[in-house]
């Protein structure tokens, strides 16, 4: 087998992803120390991190796929399964609990028709619980695609979801 063919078997990252990961290497003493940065960059571009992406990151950083996967699976913000176009995270920590996050979760489950961890059939929303978002003075709080949604009451969900196609 020629080397060209062997390289063709290695999954690749896009030039934009590769450049962004290479830029992170300036801050760390060895490439494997940028594994989390690489995982976040790939997820930002693809929505989640596939087995192929794990292999590609390992190849780029000169480490093993098992090592990259052991890191990827530890951290809750790295998704190893596909997610919907929008990720809805509702806080279920203590201050939001006091302010009624259980009722909010029940309404989210009813409205989206999926349990936490699930993705709607049309691929629009993935529903996830999240720990305290640091917005306790505006509880209950949610985060959709990285943006905070504050003082959420169940009747507001229709108009909130309307902003996300």
């Amino acid at each position, binding site marked *: 087998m020629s080397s060209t063919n062997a390289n063709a078997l290695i999954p690749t990252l896009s030039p934009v992803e590769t450049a962004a990961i290479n830029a992170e290497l300036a801050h760390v003493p060895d490439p494997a120390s940028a594994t989390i940065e690489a995982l976040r960059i790939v997820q930002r571009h693809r929505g989640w991190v596939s087995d192929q992406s794990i292999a590609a990151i390992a190849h780029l950083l000169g480490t093993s796929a098992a090592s990259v996967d052991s890191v990827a699976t530890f*951290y809750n913000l790295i998704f190893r399964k596909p997610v919907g176009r929008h990720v809805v995270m509702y806080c279920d920590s203590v201050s939001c609990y006091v302010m009624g996050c259980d009722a909010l979760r029940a309404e989210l489950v009813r409205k989206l028709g999926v349990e936490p961890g699930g993705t709607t059939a049309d691929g629009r929303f993935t529903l996830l619980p999240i*720990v305290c978002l*640091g917005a306790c003075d505006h509880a209950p709080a949610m985060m959709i695609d990285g943006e905070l949604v504050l003082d959420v009451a169940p009747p507001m969900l229709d108009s909130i979801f309307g902003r996300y196609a």
Partner: protein
Amino acid sequence: MTDKPLTERIAAAGGAVDLAAYERAGGYAAARDALTKMSPKDVQEIVKSSNLRGRGGAGFPTGQKWSFVPLGAAAGPGHRYLVCNADEMEPGTFKDRFLMEHDPHMLVEGALIAAFAIGADRAFIFLRGEYLGCERALSRAIAEATARGYVGANACGSGLEIEVAVHMSGGRYICGEETALLNALESRRAQPRTKPPFPPVSGAWGRPSVVNNVETLCNVPAIVRNGAEWFKKLGLGTDAGTKLFGVSGRVKKPGLWELPMGTPIREILEVHAGGMQPGYRFKGLLPGGASTDFLVEQHLDLPMEYGTIQAAGSRMGTGTMTVIDHTVCIVDLSRNLQHFFAQESCGFCTPCREGLPWLERLLADLEAGNGAPGDLGVIEENAQLIGVPGNTFCLHATGAIEPLASAIKYFRDEFEAHIKQRGCPLRDVRAAAAAGR
């Protein structure tokens, strides 16, 4: 001189403070003085004598922590690291996000001075992965500070290289434990490390490192500028400086305020937070996050300071309190708290990995009416086994047990009623409150 060093510029700007406003208010003058006119030991001494203590929860004296880092030839060749713990994940805590979003240069300057004080050439801000607004503010501030020559190859014209960079976390509460944080910074799984060696001797990538909280570092520029005596006098009692205190829960005006260290709990709750909402009665509070012991009515006149709150059997923690009202069932709340700690266990050691989910299930059984006589004793015995420092590898499980043990201590009748009545005695109160919202 100001009595609100952390928030005065934010108040003056009516929002986010940009570089021009930060410089107009004397920004980066402290860093320039420290880096060009003082020695690292001088800076350590000022901070030590200011009595600044860590604002992340543990309250360790900051200057003393810095003094553990070997300086000069003793440090050996290679990098040294100042790491800012900006992984704000303690449930009920919302202070560091406010500081980073509104006055990012204050943190960059604080990190820069702290790095200089420990001989570090690299400062990392370990930022919570969800805090994208902070990432935008800090990245911009670092770029501006680099362009102005405050940080970088010749920081403040000192001839020293000090680089500041942001690391965005991948998640997990355990990253707040400082040695777990260092593993996460190195892109490893965030399991706590064996101590000793402590980070000042062997930290990030095996090099001397100090981990400081955001609010801690934000205090440093003003201490260097105004002096240790000024800082000490800001506090009302034994502790120095101001503190960002916050209140969430069913109070009239939930929020965050910079107040003197030693401000009484009652003043924070009743004056600043406006007291309880109509229809809700005070039941208790977590003084500084989910991992601090409950305080109740009898504690409301205590000043918020490290020693006093500790003597009352709790910890000041992050100083942002969660108020519990009379409609909250203490058993179900305890289940919620144990769910959090069980989920966030790193899974490395058995008592924490296996014990916390087990406690969560016992509490869920009690709430569902499936409790049996003797269950409370089982919970208490296991809480004791799991919670005693030294029985687990780090203090995660100890933090988990603090709110549970104190809940049983102050609300034992409510736990027992769940068993006797085979269910939640507050069911009707909770339903009525939910219907009235």
